């Protein structure tokens, strides 16, 4: 086992700045890993532009029916909880909704079903200056990126160093997969009632797993910040407040990493990094 520390960056709501925060933290740290677990819409590679060292397909198992052996008993169709199988003149598979449980092959009395691999996406490992990147892309039209995320997380199991994990939005199973083994969680929130509402949800999730956490308030403007109020009411540490700033917005929209540029407010990211390192050491 490696001795890595996993810092998971998440937010219930999309577009609050998870990638901004995780990319800049990884870039500001010495030797670090950046993991992009948003395999539906991965963006980290647009910033790091890593040199890809290794790329591999991720596949799942789906049933393959040998019609010469099939006796038409429909046991497989009846067993499938996901309704991925139907029976016309022969067994029909809807492979997009198959969960790869293997049940159909198990119940078939005629041994007519074997399992074959189906590619659902790729995982790639790359390097960008001081940062090793691990990311994945789910093929369009697929329902679940979880097999790809599992592959990404598997990769760092025996590695050492700080690992920054960029999560997908939401609080569903796909996010839980990323935070299960976290050493610290950073919640990124926007200064709107939408931001506060989704912050509350993801905070509940982090509490459920009993993970230490802190909040980054992003895109702060003058006036009311419902997310800040939520933190104060619930005694959640505010790690840093990043003001809305057209310069940062432009850097970010061009896929530039602020801490690798001469951005005027870079001390924000370094102070965040120091706080995080303090907690996980």
């Amino acid at each position, binding site marked *: 086992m490696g001795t890595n520390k996993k810092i998971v960056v998440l937010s219930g709501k999309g577009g609050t700045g998870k990638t901004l925060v995780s990319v800049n933290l990884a870039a500001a740290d010495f030797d670090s890993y950046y993991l992009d677990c948003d395999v539906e819409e991965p963006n980290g590679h647009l910033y790091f532009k890593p040199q890809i060292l290794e790329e591999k397909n991720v596949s799942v198992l789906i049933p393959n029916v040998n019609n010469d052996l099939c006796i038409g008993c429909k046991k497989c169709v009846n067993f499938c909880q996901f309704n991925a199988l139907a029976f016309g003149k022969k067994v029909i598979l809807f492979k997009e909704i198959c969960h790869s*449980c293997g*049940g159909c092959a198990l119940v078939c009395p005629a041994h007519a079903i074997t399992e074959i691999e189906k590619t659902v996406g790729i995982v790639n490992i790359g390097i960008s200056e001081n940062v090793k990147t691990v990311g994945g892309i*789910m093929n*369009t039209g697929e329902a679940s990126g979880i097999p790809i995320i599992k592959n990404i997380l598997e990769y760092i199991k025996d590695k050492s160093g700080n690992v920054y994990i960029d999560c997908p939005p939401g609080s569903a199973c796909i996010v839980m997969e990323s935070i299960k083994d976290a050493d610290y969680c950073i919640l990124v929130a926007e200064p*709107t009632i939408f931001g506060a509402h989704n912050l509350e949800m993801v905070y509940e999730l982090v509490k459920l797993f009993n993970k230490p956490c802190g909040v980054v308030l992003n895109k702060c403007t003058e006036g009311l910040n419902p997310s800040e109020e939520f933190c104060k009411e619930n005694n959640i540490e505010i790690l840093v407040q990043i003001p809305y700033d057209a310069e940062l917005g432009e850097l970010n929209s061009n896929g530039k990493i602020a801490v690798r540029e001469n951005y005027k407010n870079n001390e924000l990211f370094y102070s965040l990094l120091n706080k995080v390192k303090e907690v996980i050491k």
Partner: protein
Amino acid sequence: MKQLLILSGKGGTGKTTIAGAFIKLHDAKAYADCDVDAPNLHLITRHKDMPTKKDYYGLPKAYIDANLCMGCGLCQQSCRFGAISYKDIYFVNINACEGCGVCEYICPAHAVSLKETPAGELFLYKNESVFSTAKLKMGSGTSGKLVAEVKKQLIENAKEVDLAIIDGSPGIGCPVIASLSGVDMSLIVAEPSVSGISDMERIIKTARFFGTKIAVCINKYDINFLNTEKIEAFCADNNISCVGRIPYDSAAVSAINRGESIVEIDCASGNAVKTVYGRVVEILQKEIVL
């Protein structure tokens, strides 16, 4: 009923804000929030009445009866989801369990059964308008199935309505696919960043699978003019209508925080959304004639 779905691929580009504005402008009688992982539309639609609530059951989850279990471990070996652990006894981690039933089938001692487990709640607001929304329980899977329930609830309660406005979820996976079924037109809210462009291209690919009409609008276009032009060029190359540019507007932030829609106040973003709305309606109507 025509269905207009608002999508973006990337999160936080302004789907809910634009959905809220469209609901106001159209005086919509039917709308839904399909972002069941992080629903927000109810925060700005201001329904006074309490909604009717309904428990949502996803797939059942496995349960091991420790009194019957003889500790053979076959269930753990057969589970593809790593949902069965052993610590003194074999037990199921319900967050990982997908309810496939393999463990129940394989158990020689009949110690495993599948039990119904609530995975979320459906809400229906029904007075002068019908609003269908839901909240998935934290950490639950099967969000696509709940999205399908949200849409079913909307359609059943608003059969006579001409147009339904549906707020989608980020990403391109199962909840998005579920929200796309039966949709006439997808409005994609793009952001002029390298991330926004990449995500827009992937959501367009996904939406095309379903043969819906597609239009794109660009939110916060003034963050990056060059990228805004790139999006417009991409749309032109791919024969997709680009229905307008909406500026970054701090007045939008304060309107949202007051629980107001941006078209209720006189602001730059609200006025731009009105133009976008006009063009979307035009495209939708054109489709009716065809």
